């Protein structure tokens, strides 16, 4: 797994994950992810278009961040998942905690709505 910070300002945290989000892939990056996504407490957009596999530990990392952000009144929105990954997310019902969007502008709109 790789993580790239695209934008961090007063309105938004925008990060991009890529590769395999499983135990081996995450390595120590979950702490890094949490540091960017959660501790800033800003609406967070997570681009997962280049994630090709997500295991339960990866789901846990995302859900934990989303729930923490919700507590601060912010949201976490997932952008552009691969169909297989989207299937995993929707089957588990996680789109109820982290909305899934396929369009950047729409994702920004969703981020503005209340959690």
């Amino acid at each position, binding site marked *: 797994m790789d993580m790239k910070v695209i934008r961090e300002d007063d309105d938004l945290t925008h990060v991009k994950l890529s590769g395999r989000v499983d135990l081996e892939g995450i390595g120590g990056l979950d702490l890094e992810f949490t540091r960017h996504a959660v501790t800033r407490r800003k609406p967070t957009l997570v681009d997962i278009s280049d994630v090709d596999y997500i295991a339960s530990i990866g789901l*846990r990392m995302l859900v934990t961040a989303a*729930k923490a952000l919700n507590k601060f009144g912010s949201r976490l929105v997932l952008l552009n998942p691969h169909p297989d990954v989207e299937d*995993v997310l929707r089957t588990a*019902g*996680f789109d109820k*905690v982290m909305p899934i969007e396929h369009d950047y502008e729409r994702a920004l709109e969703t981020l503005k709505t209340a959690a």
Partner: protein
Amino acid sequence: MENQISDDPVAVTDNVPATILVVDDDPDLELLVTQKFRRQIRNDEFHFICVRSGEDALEKLRENEIDVLVTDIKLPGMDGLSLVSRLKTEYPLIRSVIISSYGDMRTIRRALNLGAFDFLTKPIDFDDLGITITKTIEEALVLKRAVHDRERLAAIRRELDIARRIQLSMIPGIFPAFPERGEFEIFGEIITARDVGGDFYDFCMIDDDRLYFAIGDASGKGVPAALFMAVTRTMVKADAVKGLPPDRCLSEANKILCMENEFSMFITVFTGVLDTRTGEIVYCNGGHKLPFIIRGGSGPEPVENTPGIALGVIEGDSLYGLGNVKLEPGDGIILYSDGVTETMNKAGNLFTDKRLRDLLSGQSLEGPRDTVGRVLRDVEEFSRDVPLKDDITLLAIRYNKP
């Protein structure tokens, strides 16, 4: 689903000073070693305990974790050779250095035969003292570390063994499960991964006509996953046998799992009730992979999803809903965990839902045991030479007749 095994560093030997017990009735040796190793003593790398007799040495051995013993052969009372031979039986991890007078090869050889690691001769050469003791300490620490690693490995194995036992104790494993009933057949199997995931399947009769069944997969691995699974399985089943509909069973369990879940664990569960008089199934999906319905003539189709989310993620009153599907005589339902479809082969490819679907197409007539067996064989063949990363669980039911 996966997670790391607890990884607490138990007494990492690098950070603990090596403890050296020095035994000599003559105070000179104590002066020599404290002089020679003053830097290591100051830096807390070496810790010396000095005593004047064999008896005192035994007392210190009992009270402290000693790594190296340096002893003069000639001592008042118990001598150095007896001390060295006691080490061999009572403290096999301690390495020892004996000190004898120059040229006393007979005594030196006896000491080495008794298990001493090295020797020094009097008058003691300052450099020789340093080299010999340092070398012996290194040897003792390597040994200590090896034992520590082995104990830790054994602890991990024990933990996984506990997890596996928890898991197996949760699963009905006797088949045929209901030999007296001709209306349906059921068969389930779990292949546990080395690290033990948190899979389960479960079933029982609620009353004369209704069969309760469930499959689940807890996030994480090892004992935490096994316990989370065990608690969930028991809560869901307790409500199911009371006759609560599947969505209520999951909703109630979810409420409790969300209460104290600081580690954000979650578990996917699909549960249903088959009415053996009609073939009708009422079910609820809590975020699990959708089971396939296998009908004669047409390919396997996943059941329709219901409102639902993996248990333990969020609380809410109307998160779960019901679904219905009717089995005609000869139809079957097969439930599985993502360990099946996410099994990886040597090239790093996943087994996939599609491969499972293809495998199940046009197989309506065989019994549940054959269906499960065929899937497991195909998964095994697919993942040859690759260790299982996740549990693989399958539960199949065939409805025979009203």
